[in-house]
């Protein structure tokens, strides 16, 4: 009996010690697991919430996919991706405090966002002082031009897409006259001005370019009445938010407008169909890797994962899927040193040239923008121009930004 008790005691002690050892080794393994922390700062509430939320969902979906494969490999070591997300409510003050939290408190070096000129400009001093890099979705050239070098444009700018779209429409659809309408806000107004310049260079007759609407407008009938009256061949919705585009299209068509409508910003087909219905037919916009006919198998997998994360697909994500992927490609090129030193990251930027993983056809993905900013500070997202046909986006043509 005594032996039995002794054996029982030893067995329990053994199990206990074994469990403790296992627990410690597990903790050690967890502690040894390397982490690449990514920040995301953008507008995630209010009417423009979709801009920042799409960024967030893209990072979440891509991070899940990378982590399931064991993480991303940098200099032979695997890193799991974690991300911290902050809503700046499109307010420069909140953008600055959010960025300070990301770079100083969370010690993050690579941040995706913000989404508009005002917030993107406000965080530049913070990222420069902290030695961080951000991929912004604002079009102001000053953000990406010397002396600044820590911000990278994550998408095609309106002044890049506009001339290409107008030229295509002039040559293929006989467009001779053009009108612009923009939200009375810094980003869309800048985009309109750039669009007007591009149209002038192409020799198009500008019928009107001063019509604007206030942020938060829901009834576009009064403002569109005036634009439609000029009966231009093309009405450009400058810098239009996905929430406003279908309402502007609907108002124009209900007022009897028969010409073309286009924008240089990314839109979502579900929103266009739900709100504008049949009136969205023929609407031209810029997308990323949205249309199914051009997607690679990897992009299709990403779309499925995005749906799980966000509940439904958003075509804006076709453009925003590139940011995290390019950060990883650049870190892989630059090596481990770039995890803590963004100068190494910057040095590697011109060397990054990979096959675009999101497109079926073979295309090179690299940094571009030297022609616009004097340095490569733009992700070379392909310029995919879509047209709505039978309630779906169909690719009109694929262009690219000059190096």
């Amino acid at each position, binding site marked *: 009996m005594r032996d039995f008790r002794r054996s029982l005691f030893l067995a329990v002690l053994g199990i206990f010690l074994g469990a403790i050892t296992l627990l410690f080794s597990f903790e050690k393994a967890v502690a040894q697991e390397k982490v690449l922390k990514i920040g995301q700062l953008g507008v*995630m*509430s*209010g*009417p*423009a*919430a*979709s801009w920042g*939320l*799409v960024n967030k969902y893209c990072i979440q979906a891509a991070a899940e996919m990378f982590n399931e494969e064991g993480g991303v490999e940098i200099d032979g070591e695997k890193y799991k991706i974690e991300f911290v997300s902050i809503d700046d409510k499109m307010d420069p003050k909140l953008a600055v405090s959010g960025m300070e939290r990301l770079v100083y408190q969370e010690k993050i070096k690579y941040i995706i966002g913000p989404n508009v000129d005002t917030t993107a400009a406000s965080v530049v001093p913070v990222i420069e002082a902290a030695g961080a890099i951000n991929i912004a979705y604002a079009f102001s050239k000053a953000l990406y031009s010397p002396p600044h070098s820590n911000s990278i444009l994550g998408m095609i700018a309106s002044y890049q897409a506009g001339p290409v779209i107008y030229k295509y429409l002039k040559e293929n659809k006989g467009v001779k006259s053009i009108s612009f*309408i923009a939200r*009375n806000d810094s980003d869309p107004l800048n985009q309109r001005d750039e669009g007007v310049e591009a149209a002038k260079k192409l020799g198009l007759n500008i019928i009107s370019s*001063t*019509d*604007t*609407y*206030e*942020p*938060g*407008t*829901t*009834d576009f*009938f*009064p*403002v569109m*009445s*005036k634009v439609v009256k000029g009966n231009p061949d093309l009405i450009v919705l400058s810098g239009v938010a*996905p*929430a406003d585009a*279908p*309402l502007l299209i609907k108002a124009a068509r*209900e*007022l*009897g407008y028969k010409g073309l409508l286009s924008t240089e910003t990314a839109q*979502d087909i*579900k*929103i266009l169909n*739900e*709100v*504008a*219905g049949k009136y969205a037919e023929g609407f031209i916009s810029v997308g990323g890797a949205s249309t199914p006919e051009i997607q690679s198998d990897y992009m299709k997998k990403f779309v499925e994962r995005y749906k799980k994360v*966000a*509940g*439904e697909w*958003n075509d804006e994500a076709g453009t925003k899927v590139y940011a995290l992927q390019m950060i990883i490609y650049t870190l892989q090129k630059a090596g481990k040193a770039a995890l803590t030193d963004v100068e190494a990251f910057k040095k590697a930027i011109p060397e990054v040239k990979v096959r675009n993983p999101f497109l079926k056809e073979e295309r090179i993905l690299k940094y571009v923008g030297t022609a616009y900013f004097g340095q490569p500070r733009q992700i070379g997202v392909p310029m995919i121009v879509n047209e709505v046909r039978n309630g779906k986006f169909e690719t009109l043509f694929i262009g690219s930004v000059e190096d």
Partner: protein
Amino acid sequence: MSQMIINGMVLGMIYALIALGLTLIFSIMNVVNFAHGQMYMLGGFVVYYLYGVYQLNYFLALIAAALALAVIGIIFEKFFFRRVIRLAKREENTMLLAMGTALLLENLALFSFGEKQRGVPPVVTGVYEIGGGYLPAGRALVFFVALFLVIGLLLFVQYTRPGRAMRALAQDKEATYLQGVDINQISALGFAIGAALAGLAGGLLITIFAINAGSGTAVSTKAFTMIMIGGAGVVSGAILGGFVLGFCEAIGYETLPGSTTYLIIFIALILFLIVRPQGIMGRPQG
């Protein structure tokens, strides 16, 4: 010109419907309901799901939106505002509470319904040409339903017993109480009707405008502008304020560069309030 008049009429009627609910709650409870726009947005979402997604009859969906928002209004009045009004010594407390409820509803909507703009299939199709101006059938429907609701509310407030009690409560709370009126019940009814009107406006306007979780703030701002013009707490003032703002927008967008329309509207509003701070139909303070 005819397009300007059509735009002004439709906008005015829509704005009047939005402003009515806000002014009703203010007149009865002296509460500036900052969540009015968010209630409008929720009404739109009720119709989106019932009519747009589950394909229920549109008018049943509209009634459901009104009922759902009336219930939310009663809950807000009974559990939030009644207690704060009873305990608080300063008016700012109800304002802060109203702002809190607005943020609560907006964030709940963003969490529950997502970030996307939502729209529904048109209830009626076609476009009428009236004197050279265009009036889509959807807008005509909204105009007439809104007109029906405004007239219905005016008749209710003027000729029914609860309506008279609401008017009495707006004029003198103590005298109304001394006449044996159940103040709590009438306050809850007023809040329910105000919220239901916001829900009806959202449910009605989603057919032509669409909504998203963040669309409430802009609606609230315009509603406040309207009741400042017309006179806070006066039903007829809200209707007048709605039409004044509607026509100002229609004329401004037609005749002025777009960016100056609201600039001029706000300058005019400031000058007007300096001369007549109580609005067109409002009573002077004190």
